[in-house]
């Protein structure tokens, strides 16, 4: 089932250059999609178009079988959550607790359930001790944790992460990944769109979309994308570690047959 369908999406900030230039893709329910691409390729703009923060061209975006337009915007936003690139753009509450509560209120969650939900999601991102702090007085990684907790708590059907974990420590990244996996188990229809520069993350998702100057230059599963090295040269992205390693080995005349994992590669090298 397609939760979101994007069809020939075009956008220009200045009415001259299209920074999103004829983009089409769809988000199947339950899929984890990564969008990668050079700085300024249009990733955040697409994210803002998807939630109606910027106005898309007519009939270009459909979500949950509704056209994205002024009439349906509210209903769609109830089901699509976004974590912005800069967490400060996210905060509305004066404390971490208020901030998470705000999203829940928007979804008309009964007040007597709120505390439990807030505690549950603050715990998931390790921020229980910070509930009474002002978001602006947190460290960079703590801000990102709070922004993520706020969105997870709303239990949306689609979550868009716009570089939402870029400042987390490795443990924090792992915890967020685990929380998302858990939510996907509970709700197999939950779809994730992750805009990221983290290649290890991107290439472990179900589908990778490569964006270049506002156009999609590849949209496929990771294995297939990795077979088209030309894409990487042009689009400012890079290969994940394992593939870089394999390429260098191959240049040195060492061909590896079983390249499933780093461990396998090492085994073969030591044989």
């Amino acid at each position, binding site marked *: 089932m397609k939760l979101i369908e994007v069809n020939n999406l075009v956008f220009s*900030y200045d009415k001259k250059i299209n920074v999103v230039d004829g983009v089409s893709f769809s988000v199947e329910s339950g899929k984890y999609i990564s969008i990668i691409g050079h700085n300024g390729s249009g990733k955040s703009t697409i994210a803002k178009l998807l939630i109606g923060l910027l106005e898309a061209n007519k009939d270009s975006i459909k979500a949950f079988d509704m056209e994205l337009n002024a009439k349906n915007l509210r209903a769609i936003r109830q089901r699509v959550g976004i974590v912005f690139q*800069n967490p400060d753009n996210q905060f509305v509450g004066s404390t971490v607790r208020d901030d998470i509560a705000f999203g829940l209120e928007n979804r008309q969650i009964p007040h007597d359930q709120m505390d439990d939900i807030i505690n549950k999601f603050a715990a998931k991102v390790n921020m229980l001790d910070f509930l009474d702090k002002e978001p602006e007085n947190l*460290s960079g990684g703590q801000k990102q944790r709070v922004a993520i907790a706020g969105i997870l708590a709303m239990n949306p059907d689609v979550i868009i992460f716009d570089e939402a974990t870029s400042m987390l420590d490795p443990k924090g990244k792992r915890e967020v990944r685990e929380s998302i996996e858990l939510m996907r188990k509970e709700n197999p229809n939950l779809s994730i769109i992750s805009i990221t520069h983290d290649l290890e993350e991107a290439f472990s998702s179900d589908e990778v979309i490569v964006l270049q100057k506002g156009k999609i230059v590849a949209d496929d599963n990771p294995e297939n994308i990795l077979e088209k090295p030309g894409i990487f040269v042009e689009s*400012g992205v890079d290969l994940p570690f394992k593939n870089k390693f394999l390429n260098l080995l191959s240049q040195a005349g060492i061909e590896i047959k079983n390249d499933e994992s780093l461990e396998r590669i090492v085994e073969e090298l030591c044989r």
Partner: protein
Amino acid sequence: MSINFKNVFYTYSEKTPFRHEALKDVSLTINDGSFTCIVGHTGCGKSTLIQQLNGLLIPTLGSVDVNGYHIEKKSKSLKKLHDLRKEVGVVFQFSEYQLFEETIEEDVAFGPINFGVKKEEAIKIAHECLETVGIPESYYKKSPFEISGGEKRRVAIAGILALQPKILVLDEPTAGLDPRGTKYILDLFKELNKQGTTIVFVTHDINIVYEYATDVIVMNEGKVVMQTVPEKLFAEDVEQYSLETPLIQKTVNLLLAKGMKLDVSKIHSLEDLVKEIARVRK
């Protein structure tokens, strides 16, 4: 000259219920000409620490010496902080807040102008620095608020480079940069470092520490738990400091465990590793 922290404590919101001691008795030395990485878990005090380097935050207790400037509460030399800021350039974690001028080129030129460079000359410097960080000419007259996240980061870096600081302090400067931009900017810092600029670099990316750092400071809950060189750090189990093992180191460890006789001292990059593997297999 170097940088010296002597028993530095820093407390946020003192005398309020939200009082938070973010630095606890930090003493350390950062050597001139080093590429020093600062690592540690979320909230351990990295950003608080580096903000002491140009007097943006003043130690609650203790003192910081930077290039001959003495920073301590009540010390007279605090007046001279304006001069210090020419020598110590800081790119903040959320560097988009560093941008404020109408156009990108004016934003980058602001620093030099502020320190007495004529406008025309400053704009010339700005253009050079923008080119260095990969911002195309068509952007120079754009507003710094109407560009992408990674582009803002690049402009903020250009703004600090334009000051030609002796000490370059960078708080997660590559977060938000695309992979190619990251590699390019890192190599740029490395080059500046070779030419004598001291680099202080906060990061969660342990692979950067592996490939670029000459020194590393590990923090935990407001304290410095280790100041060492990368080789020594990675010879230990780094997970005890909530750090990860760099991917190259991980590969080396796997190969060593399987009995491959690598000369570890030769390996500083993936290219080196592959060369070593090829040599051993011959």
